[in-house]
């Protein structure tokens, strides 16, 4: 993933983009915790809301893989199902830590 390219696509500096990525990682990790809690407590609406938040942020920054994951999770959770969410969460966490390592 090329941050420089993503930053220029958004029309902002690479430094600013870096700052946004750090904010994204922090908020997304917090949202993932909310999803996990939702799964534990069987509260699909909370999981949907947290997925929605990740979806919006990822979409805006151009993190397409994370965006698609979060979108699928939100749609499914809105319908009351959290099947396979362990897999989804693992994929999300991998995506976020990949960002951290760039």
């Amino acid at each position, binding site marked *: 993933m090329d941050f420089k390219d993503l930053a220029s696509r*958004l*029309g*902002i500096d690479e430094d600013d983009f870096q700052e*946004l990525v750090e904010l994204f990682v922090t908020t997304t990790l917090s949202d993932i915790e909310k999803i996990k809690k939702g799964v534990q407590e069987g509260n699909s609406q909370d999981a949907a809301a947290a997925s929605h*938040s990740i979806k*919006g*942020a990822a*979409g*805006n920054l151009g993190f397409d893989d994370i965006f698609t994951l979060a979108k699928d999770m939100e749609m499914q959770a809105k319908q009351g199902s959290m099947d396979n969410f362990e897999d989804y969460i693992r994929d999300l966490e991998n995506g976020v830590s990949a960002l951290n390592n760039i």
Partner: protein
Amino acid sequence: MGNKQPYTVLAVDDNLLNLKLIEKSLSKEGYKIFSADNGPDARAIALKEKPDLILLDIEMPGETGFDVIKKLKDSSETIAIPVIFLTGVSEVDSKLKGFDLGAVDYITKPFHPLEVLARVRIHLKLSIATNSLIADQASKLRQVTEAQVAMLPTPEDNPGALFGVYYKALEEAGGDFYDILNISEKITGYFVADFSGHDIKTSYGTASVKALLAQNCTPVYSPAESMKMINDVLVEILPDGKYLTACYMHINRTTKKMTIINAGHPPVVCLPKDGEPYLIKTKGDVLGIFKDAHFGTQSIDVSEGDKFFAYSDGLVESAQNKITWANGADSLLPVYKQIAQVPYDRAPAELVNHLFGNDALPEDDIVVLCVKV
């Protein structure tokens, strides 16, 4: 929106990253950004800072974007601020609802900062254009006022007419109107009228009446004939429901005869040189409504030094005190007696001063004309 001050944008989104992204991309272009991550904070900032534009997320916990815009549009202080919604791409209903509630545009999420920038720019431009249109219209309205005042003859321009006048329009386009007609060296016509309504149409009406007076108040026609012809034209040209009450005083200073035509207007007050003031009451239809209108006509002998007052109902009526000119005119007679010694050119202002004091505002347009024989 001054030139030097940066334009201000209020961004509202519960997603902090979105807020940050908007802030970074817009502030880089010179905008000043306020941010709020919830509805109540957003409304408080909107009220305090009066931003030039608001970017508003719809889906927020607690107070949604819809709730926020409803409240913003309910307040006169924030109603004019353009609001752009941030909404999910597939949410057609929410887009329509947003427009319904007064949003100027929407941006679908995930948004691209450059699109946000472009839409912010275009809506600020539109808003500037709208504001300048309003300023332009206000300036045109002021021109109407100036033109209307310019149409009113002054005593200085008509020294032979021996009159004084007080004229005050309550709004930009006043409903009161008067004119002086120098029919011949010794014959002068004095016309005082009050249009129904106080708007732009009214002020165009006054221009028409002025032209009609000039055409029809000539030595060839009697005062009654002049008024009838003017009425017949006004019936044709005035918009439905528009009319005017008027009083026409026609003085022949050679024969010392005065004719008064009254078209639904408050009665003329006569203040004889030596004697008690009295009302010259005549009943008549208003101008501009009926083709076969009947106007009250009175001819009286006058003496040099007699003074006559014609005025609009604003002088005698009071909505607050429920006084109409039918009873108000009588009750004012003692006041005319008090100003009997005031010269005719200062009498109208003195009369208004006696009635309203120095600072009390009249409730309507006022015109008072004093004519000396």
